[in-house]
């Protein structure tokens, strides 16, 4: 299993968050999640401008095996979606933390980092799930 990027925050649902310089938050799924899903074949993206709420459905990633919901870890508005995924969903498999980002959210308020996981905490979760 590859090392977790240290500059990201994580969720129990195997998503990652990156605070961007422009104030938005990029969100994707972790390497662990993409490996569990298998080859991705379709990503259903939200509309730019759409409201998202913490814990609500935001996108759907579909692998050869199954469809899986991606939940928004924060409240906010969709600022951008990764259009590359429409034609090349496997980018999530190959570069889950970089080119495979799914959406950028403009948060509606301060982000409660205590509800998210640090790299160490997420690693502990992975170790626990074995």
């Amino acid at each position, binding site marked *: 299993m590859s090392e977790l990027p240290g500059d990201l925050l994580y969720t129990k649902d195997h998503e990652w968050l990156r605070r961007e310089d422009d104030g938005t938050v990029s969100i994707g799924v972790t390497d662990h999640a993409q*490996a*569990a899903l*298998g*080859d991705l*074949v*379709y990503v*259903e993206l939200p509309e730019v401008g759409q409201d998202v709420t913490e814990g609500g459905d935001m996108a*759907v990633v*579909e692998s*050869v*095996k*199954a*469809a899986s919901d991606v939940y928004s870890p924060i409240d906010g508005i969709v600022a951008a979606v990764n259009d590359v995924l*429409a034609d090349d969903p496997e980018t999530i498999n190959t570069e889950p933390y970089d080119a495979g980002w799914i959406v950028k959210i403009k948060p509606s308020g301060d982000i409660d980092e205590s509800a998210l996981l640090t790299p160490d905490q997420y690693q502990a979760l992975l170790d626990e799930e074995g």
Partner: protein
Amino acid sequence: MGSKTPLYDKHVEAGARIVDFGGWDMPLHYGSQKEEHHAVRTNAGLFDVSHMTIVDLKGERVRDFLRYLVANDVAKLQDAGKALYTCMLNENGGVIDDLIIYFMTESWFRLVVNAATRDKDLAWIRKQAEAFDVAVNERAELAMIAVQGPNARELAAPCIDSEWRQQALDLKLFTGMEAGDLFVARTGYTGEDGWEILMPAARAPSIWDRLVAGGVAPAGLGARDTLRLEAAMNLYGADMDETISPLEAGLAWTVAWEPADRDFIGRKPLEVMRANPDKRRFAGLLLEDKGVLRNHQRVVVDGVGEGEITSGGFSPTIGRSIALARLPAGDYDSAHVDVRGKLLNVRIVKTPFVRNGQVRIEL
């Protein structure tokens, strides 16, 4: 922890993602399901199918027994080694399981039934066999490897002792033979040419290694499912079960109506269904929009009625989503599928979607 086949360690060695399948710890894929799929369509792949249940039936009246037990007619099996695909029905005409029957000798037939249905199948077969004095012997000590793909037989031939190798390469489609302690059959579940090889469990790891060293790609249950879906081969438990007759699952071709006086289990209710106009049709769907069709999604046919996807997924060969579906009767060639509340466009197509490496539908 589930049951493990004699090849379990090989799967782990090869980096398989192991999943539970009907109580067995089986490989889902070894890294990329799509690559494994393409390997089978373009070259050769190998599958551990040792979890499947092999049952030998022996007795003087075994042929009569099978003519009663299953909906297809083993009277068609006249040459040794010949195989027959059939459904085994309950008294209501529902499918207990689908299986392959090999004609070994006049007093010995071999069945290969599904792993997930093993217990009920064996109980049913044993119960029905009593009246025919047929011995039912599960061959749990045998392992089974399927080598599939356009180059599969050529690449697997070195695993057959030279004494039988040429004869094995000359096997006709849907025919098998004993080759020393192996049983080799030109059958499969992918829509490609190839063999299914039965062997003593102890020989399985070395044969596996030899095939892999020869360039045959290990392929998991994930690829097996996308391959069989493209080939429009039914999956028990998804496309049919005990509440569905073969006539509602696209398997009417496996029911032998003639001779009319052959009494097989489920015949009477099946005759009634056959006499009534079809209420449901079984067909292939091609998704015209982006997305993926999945099992149990609702199919809406405008002005006609509704149906259901029984097997849906992404077709790696076509690059679009395909499905098998049970649909309302009628003359129409397009429909909608409810995918998370959105109605996506699908076209009704004639199956198979893919056979022998070629896409067989119009895109």
